[in-house]
């Protein structure tokens, strides 16, 4: 077990370095974008004098590395700095955006795992037969539909035509739990593609595992079919799926801009997009930290799961 612990510690160190690299890269890229926060704020009235004044008020006239260092110095104290555009603390941006994003992500994952794994196992058990072909073709077809188009379609049918569900979450703010009906369509849109990819991975893994010598051996020993499937084959099939799941959760937590925009959900994706358009560098950096940490932690978790279920598997970096 100590091997596992030192491995996890090494992974965490690596993760911290990765996060720092992400922040540096994001900072460099944001600085490289044409225009800065002053230009973005001046908008269609780019009076040079006004831009200079805004720049001075925002401290943008100081060298980039000074601004970066000062911002980084606040991090150990948990101070993410203040927004250039509004002067409010960056932490409030993250806190406000995180609630809706977390809610959507957890609901999606809670449904994704049983549905995705269930469909995958079902297809694998009925390999080549009608159920398998149905699951395989539907998942392939659904995967090909972009979220935006699928969302528009669902809204048109279920919200506008049938009137069963609200078309958007406009005006509900961050208090989405109080309006569960508004969550149905966004969660369905978010679920669709991950369910498809997860089900296909589980199906492929299961079929491989069921055809493996150790399953044949287990069968020869008279181990019951259910135990072979769920005790032996499924854990092996889960390994690639766990990593895919980690990527999906990561995708969900980093804010899914399309779904947020379509359903007017003020999550992290919206915050990020606005911040980039406004060249609000501290907010972008704060989000880079959050996203970097999320990615590292989730991938570490996925690798741990993979190690637990199938110790032979190679670790993903």
């Amino acid at each position: 077990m100590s091997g596992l612990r030192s491995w996890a510690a090494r992974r965490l160190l690596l993760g911290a370095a990765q996060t720092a690299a992400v922040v540096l890269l994001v900072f460099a890229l944001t600085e490289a974008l044409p225009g800065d926060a002053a230009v973005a704020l001046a908008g269609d009235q780019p009076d040079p004098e006004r831009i200079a004044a805004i720049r001075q008020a925002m401290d943008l006239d100081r060298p980039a590395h000074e601004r970066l260092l000062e911002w980084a110095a606040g991090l150990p104290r948990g101070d993410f700095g203040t927004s250039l555009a509004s002067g409010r603390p960056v932490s409030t941006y993250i806190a406000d955006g995180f609630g809706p994003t977390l809610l959507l992500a957890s609901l999606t994952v809670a449904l994704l795992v049983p549905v995705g794994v269930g469909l995958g196992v079902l297809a694998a058990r009925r390999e080549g037969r009608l159920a398998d072909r149905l699951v395989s073709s539907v998942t392939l077809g659904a995967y090909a539909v972009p979220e935006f188009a699928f969302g528009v379609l669902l809204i048109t049918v279920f919200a506008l035509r049938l009137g069963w569900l609200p078309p958007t979450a406009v005006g509900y703010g961050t208090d989405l739990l109080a309006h569960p009906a508004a969550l149905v369509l966004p969660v369905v849109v978010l679920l669709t593609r991950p369910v498809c990819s997860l089900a296909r991975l589980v199906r492929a893994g299961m079929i491989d595992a069921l055809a493996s010598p150790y399953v044949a051996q287990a069968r020869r020993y008279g181990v019951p079919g259910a135990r072979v499937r769920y005790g032996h084959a499924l854990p092996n099939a889960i390994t690639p799926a766990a990593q895919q799941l980690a990527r999906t959760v990561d995708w969900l937590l980093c804010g899914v801009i399309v779904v947020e925009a379509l359903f007017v959900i003020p999550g992290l994706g919206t915050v990020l997009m606005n911040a980039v358009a406004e060249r609000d560098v501290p907010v972008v950096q704060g989000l880079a930290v959050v996203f970097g940490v999320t990615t590292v932690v989730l991938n570490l978790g996925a690798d741990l799961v993979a190690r637990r279920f199938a110790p032979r598997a190679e670790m993903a970096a």
Partner: protein
Amino acid sequence: MTSHDVSLDASCSAGLRRRGFLAAASGAAGLGALALAGCSGAGPAGDPASGDGGKPKRGGRLRAAFAGGGASETLDPHLANLFADVARAKALFDKLADYGPDLSARPRLAAAWEPDAGLVRWKVTLREAVFHNGEPVTARDVLHSYRRITDPERAFRAKASLEPVDLGASKALDARTIEFVLKRPTAEFPNVLAAFGAYIVPEGEQDFDTAPVGSGPFRFVSFAPGKSAVLRRNEDYWDGAPYLDELEFVVANEESARVNALLGGQVEYAHELNPTTARAHEGRGQIEIVRLRDSSMQSFAMKTDRKPFDDKRVREAFFLIADRQELVDGALSGAGRIGNDLFGRGYEYYADGLPQREQDLGRAKALLKRAGAENLKVVLDTSPVAAGFTEAAAIFRDQAARAGVTVEIRSGSKDSYWKDILDSGTICSYRSGAMPIEAHISQRLLTGSTTNATKWRHEDFDALYQQAQSTRDKEERAAVFERMQRRLYAEGGFLVWGFADWILGTARGVRGVEAGAPANSLDWARFDKVWLA
């Protein structure tokens, strides 16, 4: 960050464009909602859009969806930049004056104004009005507001508009009279009082985000930046209490989300819709479509100080290359009407007596030949910063090809577009929202103008502007403005090919939405006269 492919197609990313800058965007004059495209000239305000008469009813709550500024939004009226900011600001605050449908200034908090003989000292009398905290609106509040706007540290947008005022010398004569001292004669000074963002706030510091105090028709209830702002009726409003009990502004940046929310009954008013949406729902009875005609000037700006456009024959040739109807149909989906190379169709002082310019490729070619600019190649700067920009650029490229001119389109970043095109390049896509013609000239066409994108710098033109501002008689002033516009029509740098409609949607029961009101004007996004049937 890993991601599934974020499938933003073109229309989606266009819709996600959050910044509808107000001055760059909207406005309309004249003509009711049902006016036919192609009519020329515009009368004053049309009928209310949904005004099938009926006596206004009190009560109810109206939710209005706007594209907003996300989590950085503020209720500080002097920071207003976007449509949503201004709509909220005008519900909570007042200006001394505001623009009528023809963009002429009308008294608001100011009851009257009177210049001295030299047009440099203006006595402005305030009406009796109170702030939401019960304090009267006084001359000191006005001076405080203007000093705050012009604070050199703050860089508020309205600072440039207040430039003619010498605030050091201006003073309060009594509680409700202010004497403004100007740096030079300014016959159109009331335009300054109505300027974008020149709102009156009470003296002293206040926290605009948690408890803003203004004198506007609605009082503050709550505000969540980027999400919603809830306001309620101000019973003591000097212009009559609003009909609505409550008004909520919600933010939905995606156009399809605003339409869906409107169709699904989640909001009663949706601002800024696409022409295709309007066509799909117009006359279907489900929602009302309100078109604000002549909202936004659409043009190409030629830099008159550099090759090839320093030759006025080349500029005239470009005027003649444009097939304006094709541009309106293609780039604006027909939601607009053609322009005549002048800003401000339908506004006060617009020179509408000039002949409509038509495409004339033969003359264009001849002019280019005389200018020695055959086989001319130009780079046209554009950007997806505004609806129709890239489409118009592509259409114009094809039109120019027929006159032997090669146009290469260069698409730039939309976040810094307006800054990028100010000094570099030779020709670019350009648009502007409603403002008085005088303001358009002073901001863009004088030697000292700060946003002179056509680099139009002529001392005699500057002198004409000063002459107009020093002319007390309105008819004489109009004649001077006409002379200036004739010059611009003949050899200016703006190829104004059209004026776009600004499109709103309202739920069926909403009454009193003014259809003749340009954005930036008093009656646009004005909710104190709106009621629910």
